[in-house]
């Protein structure tokens, strides 16, 4: 279940920033785009606080801020204050007269104002960029991004890897992220985590992949903060508009080549002098971000699930079929449609390979067909019976729980048995006791204690 934990750790930007060292975060505050992204991640109440004190250049007593919310919502207040403090957006200071106060980080304050009101420098030198002779439309960019991203996912799923479709850097990142590992033939092959990765939605995949990639950039001689700031700037760019590459140093040019490989930006040639951000890069850090790369061949919403456990997948993409096939038995295949059925066996097979029921359900939800979303309840387009049954099948596997324990048996008398059993019960370590067989099972942690008691008891009685 590795990826679930890893994924939870860096699921949101806030959690990711917590894993970074102080100086990286401090560097990030130097970029307006990064400040904007961090601001967007704050809880709503916290955003309100920050905006209210954005123009106050001095510390504010904590007591004053706490009066900004009504009495009934003290809990929300402390949560918001906590969220701001953990990101070090404000610092605790002692004011005159010993009052505890908060003061916004001056770098953050300055750069958030730059993002909001202007000033400072632009992040690309594209003001004087002339018209692109062959401009790319949004549709072109979507196609390109999808093609690049699918190439990577394909590479993950393929049995016989042809390493010409993706670059060495991509493979390196995939291996670093634990999505692939070297098998005995020294060829990369997919891991359990890799399968779980495939079931995530595209936005989460991109974010996870980029986070893992960023972990490796230091080795390549790039600064994490600089790369992150570039990504944030990129994520606030406008789709379908070109930006100039002029003025970027060599190491950032190299970073851009990597992003180009992953499909986050489009460049016609390496020396084109301009690049376009794609949909994959937009709102990268946003929590409830949904990327829909809809093209004619590839639809995001393509699955219909019926209450009779039948599943219809309107697609002919091999990748999507491979994903659906992980937990479905296929019955028929037509040019644009595949009919399958969800059975206990097919689900159990998926569960055995480390996929959780929640992941299957979220995958189905994510790819639910437009018609299903329209007719059913908005937050739950799937038939409830199927969802419940998938959960039940998962729970079936969790009927046994394992505890370290010690068995006591062959008591000489029923009296001895009772004394030990009562003692174990009192100290709360008794797991099982059978009067007929005179056996007791206690937790491993309580074994020493019970043993001592028994020695003392037998000494006293003899």
């Amino acid at each position, binding site marked *: 279940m590795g990826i679930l934990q890893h994924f939870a750790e860096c699921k949101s930007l806030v959690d990711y920033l917590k894993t970074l060292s102080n100086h990286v975060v401090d560097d990030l505050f130097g970029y307006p785009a990064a400040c904007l992204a961090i601001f967007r991640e704050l809880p709503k109440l916290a955003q309100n606080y920050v905006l*209210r004190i954005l123009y106050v250049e001095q510390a504010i007593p904590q007591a004053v801020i706490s009066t900004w919310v009504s009495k009934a*919502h003290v809990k929300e207040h402390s949560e918001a204050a906590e969220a701001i403090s953990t990101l070090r957006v404000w610092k605790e200071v002692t004011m005159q007269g010993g009052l505890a106060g908060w003061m916004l980080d001056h770098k953050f304050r300055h750069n958030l104002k730059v993002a909001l009101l202007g000033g400072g420098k632009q992040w690309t030198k594209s003001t004087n960029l002339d018209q692109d002779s062959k401009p790319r439309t949004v549709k072109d960019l979507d196609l390109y991004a999808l093609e690049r991203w699918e190439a990577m996912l394909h590479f993950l799923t393929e049995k016989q890897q042809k390493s010409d479709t993706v670059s060495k850097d991509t493979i390196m990142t995939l291996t670093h992220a634990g999505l692939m590992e070297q098998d005995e033939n020294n060829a990369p092959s997919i891991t359990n985590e890799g399968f779980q990765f495939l079931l995530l939605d595209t936005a989460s995949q991109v974010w996870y992949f980029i986070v893992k990639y960023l972990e490796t950039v230091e080795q390549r001689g790039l600064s994490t903060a600089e790369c992150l700031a570039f990504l944030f700037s990129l994520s606030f760019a406008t789709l379908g508009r070109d930006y100039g590459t002029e003025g970027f140093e060599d190491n950032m040019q190299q970073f851009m080549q990597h992003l180009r490989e992953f499909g986050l930006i489009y460049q016609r040639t390496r020396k084109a002098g301009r690049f376009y951000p794609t949909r994959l890069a937009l709102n990268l850090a946003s929590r409830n971000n949904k990327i829909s790369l809809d093209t004619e061949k590839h639809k995001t919403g393509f699955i219909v699930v019926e209450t009779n456990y039948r599943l219809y997948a309107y697609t002919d993409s091999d990748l999507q079929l491979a994903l659906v096939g992980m937990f479905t038995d296929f019955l028929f295949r037509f040019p644009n449609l595949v009919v399958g059925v969800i059975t206990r066996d097919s689900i159990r097979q998926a569960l055995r390979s480390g996929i959780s029921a929640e992941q299957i359900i979220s995958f189905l939800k994510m790819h639910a067909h437009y018609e299903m979303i329209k007719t059913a309840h908005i937050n739950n387009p799937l038939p409830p019976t199927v969802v419940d049954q998938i959960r039940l099948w998962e729970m079936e596997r969790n009927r046994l729980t394992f505890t370290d324990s010690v068995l006591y048996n062959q008591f000489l008398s029923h009296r001895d048995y009772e004394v030990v059993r009562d003692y174990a019960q009192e100290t709360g370590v008794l797991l099982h006791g059978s009067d007929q067989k005179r056996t007791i099972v206690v937790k491993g942690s309580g074994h020493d204690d019970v043993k001592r008691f028994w020695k003392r008891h037998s000494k006293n009685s003899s």
Partner: protein
Amino acid sequence: MEVESNLLIVVIDVNPAQKYVRSDSKQFFNCVDSVLTFCNAHLMLQASNKACVIASHINQSHILYPIEEREGVTLKPIRQVDGQYEVFLELEKSVRSQIKKFVMSDAFTSFDSTRSADSSGNFTTCLASALGKALCYINRKERELTAGEKLNSRILVVSGSSESTAQYMSFMNVFFSAQKLGVIIDACVLGPYATLLSQGADITGGIYLRPPHIPGLLQYLLWVFLPEASLRKQLALPPPVPVDYRAACFCHRQLIDMGYVCSVCLSSK
């Protein structure tokens, strides 16, 4: 699964007859600056937030932002000139340039001369029609939603004109349709007490506020009007002003304390 977004429509009064504009015209630009920053702050909260700015003038109202793309007209893309986020820059530039047009135009400058006064004698702002436009805009945006999307809309009116009771009927129509659509109407009044707007805010569940200090407008906007409806419940906001619920007489357009209601058409006399 559900994607929520907030649409904020700001109706800004650009009528030069407003009292605070007449006393010091610089204040008007200060007020525009504050409103622009406020709109950008709204866009800053969430990536999915949307904003729209409508200018309300004598006998006309115009949508200043977003600029609709018309066929055949290609807009020149606005490039970043400094560290400001592109979307913010776009909003600011388009609103500023169009307000400039208003200021330069005849209707604005000729106010002091007697020329326009005699033509109609009407200096009141078309707030009701601007609000109507805002509601139409909201309605259109709601229709454009795809399944699984939700739009929370609200309207903020920033105005300093003394309202005319001549628009009483249109105001009431707007308020009740807003209530039906679930749209909140907030009023930030920079002039004397506005009876109708305070009624509208009360009907739709919005906030009516008269900032005592106009140069500090931005701080009031950020504090009171920026939080969305769900967040407002948690905040300690200024207490609501008692609402004057007097109706306007249908024949003379004056607010009356006591009147007669026609049992057939419900008009008051």
